[in-house]
């Protein structure tokens, strides 16, 4: 719908469409001509609006024309719009709209002022050494954090707006000359095609970017830290930053990413290798230990050394539940405590830890409901799982499935279940990138930053597992000088 020359008509339409108590229609005169400033109260910098728009216009001593706006208003963001719909969209995103009688267009000025959280260390990825900055919920701030890290004209952002009602700004971020152009185009197409009511968090976008709706595992990488995001896009990945979310998404995703920690890159290679091996071992232990213990107790007593067997026999004496029910029951308690401690207010959380962990566990063992080895195994398994927190949800489900299989079919069932999981993982691809790369398929060059973390001279090339158009990461000269 086109804007009219008559200010009264335009105002009537706007009041009808966006009239609300928090929307201001400030009427004033420009050299005798009626004019109105329209804006949403709480998302506009009103002081700046008064200084940059109202004052110069009200003091104007000539007739109003679009040229006047160009010459007298020094707002860095200016835009002229001819339709009502576009005008409304701009007002709702926090711009100030100027309507002048006798002009069939609206003038928009970017004077947004949203309340935002201060930049802080993200709770999901804390580091001992390394940058402590984390993304916040504001897209411009997050973009500025990226710009500060990568001061290159090759860092590109593609802005889009998604969500019928939320009109959420979404930015695609990549390095021109490294990222695969086809992937950028594909993501742009996918994000543009999102047509839902609202995008309230980046996880909403994740659902549309994943290629397998029913997948148990993550298909899209994510991070809350600008340094990690910078490193990822320098490897050829494409990032998606969503306004209102501190979590940036990265495509394509490899399972290995979650076994790598930011601290691996800020410390020595030896400590990184050790930490990665430890994480892998801990996750494996976490998934298999409860199931293995139950199946050993039920079916394969010969697997346990005699002294250990006697210890277990004495501890399970008098326990009313069968080993698999006992383990299942203890795991259920652990998961409930876990869920409660995440949701509960912090001041109650401490109480839950004490009551759940100490009182409930100790009492249950003392009362003879569960045995001490079972409790210990579940507690240890739970702790082990958090060495790779990003995969905690998927692996919790797998642990439960394995426990059921181990308790009903025994170790051979576990072997078959492992093979099924393995087949599932190796056949899984997202954006033509195998989830298990660089291990299956083996990408020899990328094994230098797999579980083994290579030294500087071995990191000369960007990963082959991720499509990129520029392989050289460190120049030959630099490597030679370093050697």
């Amino acid at each position: 719908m086109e804007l009219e020359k008559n200010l009264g008509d335009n105002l009537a339409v706007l009041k009808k469409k966006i009239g609300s108590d928090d929307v201001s229609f400030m009427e004033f005169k420009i050299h005798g001509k009626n004019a109105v400033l329209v804006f949403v109260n709480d998302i506009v910098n009103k002081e700046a609006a008064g200084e940059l728009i109202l004052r110069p216009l009200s003091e104007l001593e000539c007739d109003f024309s679009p040229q006047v706006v160009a010459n007298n208003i020094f707002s860095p963001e200016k835009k002229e719009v001819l339709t009502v719909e576009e005008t409304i969209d701009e007002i709702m995103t926090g711009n100030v709209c100027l309507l002048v009688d006798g002009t069939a267009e609206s003038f928009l000025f970017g004077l947004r002022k949203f309340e935002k959280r201060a930049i802080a260390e993200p709770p999901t990825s804390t580091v001992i050494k390394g940058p402590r900055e984390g993304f916040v919920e504001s897209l411009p701030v997050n973009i500025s954090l990226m710009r500060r890290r990568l001061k290159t004209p090759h860092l590109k952002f593609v802005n889009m707006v998604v969500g019928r009602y939320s009109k959420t700004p979404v930015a695609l971020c990549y390095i021109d000359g490294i990222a695969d152009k086809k992937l950028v185009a594909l993501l742009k197409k996918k994000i543009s095609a999102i047509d839902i009511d609202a995008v309230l968090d980046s996880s909403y976008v994740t659902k549309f970017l994943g290629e397998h709706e029913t997948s148990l595992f993550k298909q899209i990488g994510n991070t809350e830290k600008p340094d990690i995001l910078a490193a990822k896009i320098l490897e050829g990945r494409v990032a998606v930053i969503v306004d209102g979310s501190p979590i940036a998404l990265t495509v394509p995703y490899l399972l290995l990413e979650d076994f790598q920690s930011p601290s691996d890159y800020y410390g020595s290679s030896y400590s990184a290798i050790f930490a990665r091996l430890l994480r892998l071992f801990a996750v494996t232990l976490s998934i298999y230990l409860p199931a293995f213990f139950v199946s050993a107790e039920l079916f394969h007593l010969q697997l346990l050394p005699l002294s250990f067997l006697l210890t277990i026999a004495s501890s399970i004496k008098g326990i009313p539940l069968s080993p698999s029910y006992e383990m299942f029951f203890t795991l259920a308690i652990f998961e409930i405590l876990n869920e409660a401690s995440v949701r509960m207010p912090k001041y109650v959380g401490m109480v839950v830890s004490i009551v759940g962990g100490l009182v409930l566990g100790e009492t249950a063992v003392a009362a003879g409901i569960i045995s001490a080895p079972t409790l210990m195994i579940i507690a240890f398994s739970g702790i082990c799982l958090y060495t790779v927190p990003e995969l905690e949800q998927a692996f919790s489900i797998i642990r439960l499935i394995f426990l059921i299989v181990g308790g009903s079919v025994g170790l051979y069932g576990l072997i078959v279940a492992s093979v099924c999981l393995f087949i599932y993982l190796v056949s899984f691809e997202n954006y033509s990138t195998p989830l298990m790369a660089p291990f299956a398929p083996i990408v020899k060059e990328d094994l230098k930053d797999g579980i083994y973390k290579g030294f500087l001279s071995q990191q000369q090339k960007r990963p082959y597992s991720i499509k990129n158009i520029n392989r050289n990461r460190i120049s030959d000269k630099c490597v030679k000088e370093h050697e």
Partner: protein
Amino acid sequence: MNRIFPLKTRQICLFFIAFLPVNKLFIMPSIVAATARQDMWMSALINMAIDAATLAVIMFICAKRNIDFYGILENTFGKTGSKIILSFYFVFFMLKAVLPISEQRDFVTLTFYFTRPGGFIFLPFFLAAFYLCLKPLRCVGRCADLLFIPTIIGFVFLIFLSFGNFELGALLPFGINGAAPIFEGSYIASPWYGDCVYYLFFAGRYLHKKKDGVKILLSYIAACAMVLIFIVVFYGTFSVIAFRQRFAINEISKYSTIINNIGRFDYLSTFMLLISGVVSLSLPLYFAGEIMNRITEIKKPWIFPLIVSAITLAVLVVLEQYFASIEKFITGYASAYFILLGNLFPIVAALFSLKEKKHEIYQS
């Protein structure tokens, strides 16, 4: 346009190392020991030599050809002819599947589940087999990329545990019983060999570069050598009572001092080998399903994998009582069938491919 190959040379090499030795470590050693006794390693060596030679010939002839086995058959025998030959291969793979699956079922139920009735314990295997059959060939290649690790670790650990009780004297003197038992042992073991057939189904589905043939052949020999080492250590440990040790993989390390101290520690390596074993056992079903899909050109590729898995399950359940007869049949009469389709026909097919190559060159 660049053709995308589902496999890589490295994956074929690792395929042989990861999956070939595992199924030969269960009852084959005791069966061959009953016939060839201390010369059983020579029987295995003959099988290995025949297979390696077959593989070398096939590779030499048709590796560089940009055509797969199905294409070779179709170009040579026509559509109907190729379907008839493929149906023989379908039977070949089904027979190749039955014996190892039933022996592994018996191994699992008798060794790990002696405290409980273990009849249904083996059923989940068929789910895994069916699941693998649904996946494309590149998935098999990727499985090989990773599963060679448990195979090697499991094997090395098992040999390490057993080596303390190995006595070379048990294998001496060589050839005292004459050549006949050696060849008979080799003939009996043929259902477990003939794995070069798998290569026939890989040909044309990977980019064959210079020296790739050597790499593949060496990896095949390495896989057979693992079996050979196992057989030597097995007979060196048990000597004349080797034929009584039905499941060699379970028995070979039982005299280890580590086991005496801390329990059946060797089961850890058995479990590792069983992980590769599940995929290895599924492979004949995988190719049987693929062949049937190819013959019928069905649009729902899950149907035949399901049928193939169900048939094998039915055979195992219905004929459970007659396992000894099945074993006798497969290691007896069916051995000739295995040699025919596992060793002779692949060479013939490869020769046909050569003829086709000339034809193509002539045409061009």
